[in-house]
């Protein structure tokens, strides 16, 4: 099919004939948080629109967990729900072995386990993670997430995969991310929320 521009008379295959093509993006940046000096107890994404099919969060993080361990866990909470509505499963490797863990009726989900570095990690070392939240706006489904993350400290660290379910059919409109064992996310930690359309 060709379309004629009422503006220029030109014809073409674009509905915007005579103008530049518009290609609808299917992976859009929604919001980004960069932690400043002094750190923060959590990273919050609020007023998330329901116009996407899935969400993805990319994380770079370091917590103030002390005591020698070089890993901490990203935990995730939806719509400020602090009731025992979360279940998680995790599998990880730390260079010495592979392990698995599961827990139910928790007050937050597993964002991405063992993917925050800590104050015991080498300076400048930040863990990374990717979290996918599928069908986040669907009001007929519980919300399931999957995470891939890790931190390597040239002699310590781990890589992990995880999944969580939030037993709610509410659309996800806000997300809170925090470190499980260290109370403060340190400067330069970074979280980017993306929306994916089907």
């Amino acid at each position: 099919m060709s379309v004629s521009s009422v503006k220029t008379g030109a014809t073409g295959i674009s509905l915007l004939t005579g103008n530049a093509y518009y290609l609808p993006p299917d992976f859009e940046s929604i919001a980004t948080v960069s932690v400043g000096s002094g750190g923060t107890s959590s990273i919050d994404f609020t007023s998330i629109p329901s116009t996407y099919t899935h969400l993805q969060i990319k994380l770079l993080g370091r917590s103030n967990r002390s005591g020698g361990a070089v890993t901490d866990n990203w935990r995730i909470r939806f719509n400020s729900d602090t009731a025992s509505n979360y279940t998680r499963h995790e599998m990880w490797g730390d260079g010495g072995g592979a392990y698995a863990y599961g827990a139910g009726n928790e007050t937050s989900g597993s964002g991405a386990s063992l993917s925050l570095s800590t104050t015991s990690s080498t300076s400048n070392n930040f863990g990374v993670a990717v979290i996918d939240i599928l069908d986040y706006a669907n009001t007929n489904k519980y919300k399931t997430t999957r995470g891939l993350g890790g931190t390597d400290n040239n002699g310590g660290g781990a890589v992990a995969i995880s999944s969580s379910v939030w037993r709610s059919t509410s659309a996800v409109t806000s997300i809170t991310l925090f470190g499980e064992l260290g109370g403060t996310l340190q400067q330069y930690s970074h979280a980017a929320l993306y929306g994916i359309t089907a």
Partner: protein
Amino acid sequence: MAKTYEPIATTTVSNGTTNSVEFTSISGNYTDLIIVASAKYSSAGYVIEMTFNSDTGTNYSYTRITGDGTSAASTRFTSQSKAFGGWTGASAFAANVVQIMNYSNSTTYKTALTRANPVDDRVAAYVSLWRSTSAITSIKLTLEGGATNYYTSGSSFTLYGIKAA
């Protein structure tokens, strides 16, 4: 709304004599990088070694978890001269996705996540660390085992950039 997930460069091996693929002059315009590699070699169990900015010093380390159909295992590699970029397949092209976070940040070390799927023998996830605060401007993906080991024709490597708001 602006596109946030953009292809930067693609290389498809066609000559059967390519041992490494390199992306150069990577701009700092994005937040994260993603490499999608579909790679094959004539023998099973060969790794794609990844270096940044031509740094071949022992400034890399990585930790992996693997499953081979029988058991899961984990291994750590310290003070390496390369990061982990993926596996090649022998009976089929292996699917690899590498995510490099905040690659142009000049404050933090660079960490990459790799999901590797060499269909012949295992499934794997890796986290790699490059102990440098330099912005990544080039990435080299070399088939291990020496310069006469070549990617099978049809092996493809695509670099994407993702830009956060």
